[in-house]
């Protein structure tokens, strides 16, 4: 399932996939895979992404 919340949060901060990838120390393809729902990140990576986006884990990764 696509992670549209992540994409929206990233877009809100005007960050590209590459920018976010650089900030959290992964490849752009990994961010792309997470947004597409092709890859489930570890809790460490989830936390790093949330910190960079200024969101909580629930806001980005919890399914309603």
């Amino acid at each position: 399932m696509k992670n549209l919340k992540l994409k929206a949060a990233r877009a809100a901060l005007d960050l590209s996939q590459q920018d976010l990838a650089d900030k959290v120390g992964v490849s752009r393809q990994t961010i792309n895979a997470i947004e597409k729902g092709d890859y489930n990140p570890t809790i460490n990576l989830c936390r790093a992404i949330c910190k960079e986006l200024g969101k909580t884990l629930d806001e980005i990764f919890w399914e309603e």
Partner: protein
Amino acid sequence: MKKSVIVKKIILSVLFILALLLTPLLFMIKTPREKNTSRWSSSIEIKDRTLSPQSNSIGFNIDKAGEYTLYFSMIPEGYDKDSISKVKTPGLGFITTVVVTDSSENVVYSSTQGAIFLDTVIFLQPGDYKVTYYYHSNEDEFYDFASTYICGSKEASQMAKDINFASFIENGTTVFNYEFCCLSKEAGLFFPSIMLSWGMIVGLLGGILVAELFFFGKDGKKYDERQILEQGKAFKLGFFTMFVTVEALIILNLSGIATIADYPVFYQAAIFLGLMTYVIYCIWTESYFAINEKSTRVLIFFAFIAVLNLVIGIVNLIHGQIIVDGRITFRIMNLYCAILFIVIFAVLLLKRIVNSKKSSSDDDDEEDD
């Protein structure tokens, strides 16, 4: 550039130079022994139902105890070693016996056949030996010989009956080419020449060094968690591909089909297939290149290796070094390498095209590098 990287490069360079200098020394210590203890080639003639000469012999020396392969070949003119098994003994009109004796005239090996083409492995002690071909054109001659040299009179009589001599079919001049050689076990070395071994080792080390120094040994290269996960899956897939291929090759070998090529050719094919599977899976799952690593440099490097190996492979093919006596030799490795890198190059390009199409059709904001 970090100090640690500079030190690493210096160490690698020194190791490479050391390997370059020491490899020939290594082979000087382990110089392959003379392969053939003795090689002998001549011919006999059948003329007006008379064999000329009636026997032939040659001496050879063994200086180290061990297993040796005795190779006997006595093939009528016009036949080759593959068709000789179809020639029936009585059809030749005479029988040949090969006897190997030691310096005390003790028989250490003997074989009786019509036309002969065989390899046999026997254990020999150091000393002088003699191999003799005897030709017998009738039962009496054979009986006298067999009862004297090979067995008792009762067995010799039975053997002479079993052979069922036919009259000479040939009544003109027929030439039989015969050959004998004694090969030590060391003749089966994988590397037949020092220069080839040296070239392969230096090439391998040089390749690793160039790749490490200029392409892959970059500072700060690392993979993220998804890439490491995908690499693990790729490794598993590559391993099972190699496993299945090796098993298939063993079955082919047992069924006799694998005789069309030397063993290294098959096993290298299995390794290359496993490697190819690993690399293709990694490329396709975007886990081949490290974070922020540019693929263009690697693409150029792979194209260079592919072209280089392709050229060497074609040159080998033109010079007839890949297929020798109907068998594929290990010189096909260059073509293997070329195929491997061409496939990897093609997959890299294809992935680039797919990514660029995806990024233009999706609303992704980046293009793949």
